[in-house]
């Protein structure tokens, strides 16, 4: 422990946080829980922050502005599609085509709907479009792949981790994909899925526990 650290500790105990009641109340929260609260990541990823700044700075949401915004968001969409599309016989290029279709629709909407110029709306809107396209693609793939007796065969992801993620229930799976693969913060994920950040954290912990168990980690 550094000298400064010791001094801060000593000052804390002399301060209003050091009364007997306050001290006991502090001890009700384990230090690790408090540290988790302080480690809450930035509420906005760099891509979203830049996209929102662009939209706010633009006088009109013209084709050029929309194009620039989509260029910023595209990596997030691409990561989401690659993580969620059950590829089966699809090549990775075809997955990327789904991401392109999502981006094209999103770009068009940016031009026609000026209300999309804030962070939660941008992400939620892009997410809804991507989720719809991915679900449709997965349904098509499942319909095409059949077992010997002609019944639809559920296409499994390749790789143990992807297969384990596929076993999670819908909400947990989306949280893991958005947080881990797409890289959204807990707050952004919460906005996108209509949950509270605290719920995202709780479900994320539960999902990770399940994954660890499934993968015998």
């Amino acid at each position: 422990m550094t000298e400064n650290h010791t001094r801060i500790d000593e000052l804390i105990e002399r301060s209003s946080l050091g009364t007997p009641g306050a001290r006991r109340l502090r001890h009700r929260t384990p230090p690790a829980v408090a540290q988790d609260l302080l480690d809450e990541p930035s509420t906005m990823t760099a891509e979203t922050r830049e996209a929102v700044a662009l939209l706010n700075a633009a006088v009109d949401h013209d084709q050029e502005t929309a194009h620039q915004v989509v260029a910023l968001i595209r990596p997030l969409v691409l990561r989401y599609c690659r993580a969620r599309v059950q590829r089966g016989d699809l090549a990775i290029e075809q997955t990327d085509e789904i991401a392109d279709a999502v981006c094209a629709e999103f770009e068009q909407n940016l031009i026609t709907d000026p209300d999309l110029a804030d962070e939660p709306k941008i992400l939620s809107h892009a997410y809804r479009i991507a989720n719809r396209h991915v679900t449709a693609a997965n349904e098509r793939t499942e319909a095409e792949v059949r077992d010997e007796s002609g019944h639809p065969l559920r296409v499994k992801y390749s790789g143990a981790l992807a297969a384990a993620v596929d076993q999670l229930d819908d909400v947990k799976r989306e949280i893991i994909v958005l947080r881990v693969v797409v890289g959204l913060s807990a707050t952004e994920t919460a906005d996108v899925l209509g949950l509270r950040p605290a719920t995202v954290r709780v479900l994320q912990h539960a999902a990770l526990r399940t994954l660890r168990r499934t993968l015998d980690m």
Partner: protein
Amino acid sequence: MGGVVPGGETPLDAAHEPATTTPVSALDLSSVEADDEEAERPAESLERRQADLELRNDLALAGFDGPEWRRFAEELARYGRAVMKAWCYSGEIFNQCRKKNCYPGPSPEHWTDDDRDGLADDVVTAAIIAFRDRALIGRGWDWRAGASLKTYFIGACVYQFPNAFRRWRTEDQTWNQLRRLDPSADELLHQRHRDDTEDLALIHLESSTAFDAIPDDRTKIAMLLHSQGYTYPEIADLLDTSVKAVDGLLIRHRKRAASTSWRTS
């Protein structure tokens, strides 16, 4: 502690500024029952607030950043989370919001430990940032005004509560809709709506006749917290009063309960 704060900020100096010796808490103390011990509190409170100022100045020298800030913020989070959980449990948070004109609507009929934990986490995470920026860096907190650092911080938490609560309420409604639409959501819903021990204790206590007979909210809250294992110093801190006053509240309640029981038997 002297010196110049990075960014040209000069530390505030308790030794050279006239102190207000009578603390005026940010919380409304008008309903606190009279108690001899109250007379002894201003001196201690003044000392604590002077240490608060010293602490604030040390943090300013570190630019409200780095390991010093982190250490302080950690203790602030531990304290704030415990207070918010206790206030959510006892319903006091809604009284506090009403006093600050930010009442978010009535307390929910049913919420779980997880709900209260999540709300406390959201509130404290947002309040720490607001507190640092406005109270400490922006100098919204003035040690002479009477409120201690911890009281000021809890005030910041109260102001953050309505947003977090509304968000929780919206989500709760969404969960209920999901439950109606999709039975497979039950597993998740089950996690949120399980009966927890604190709720059962609360239901048990609230259904008792003696509890209904308690004439004032402060005694009810003290009773609730006491039934949950909070110590007298903790309850005193949570109600911003003295240990002796808490003792008085609970003794008077027991006498009233015994007298009622004797009369009705």
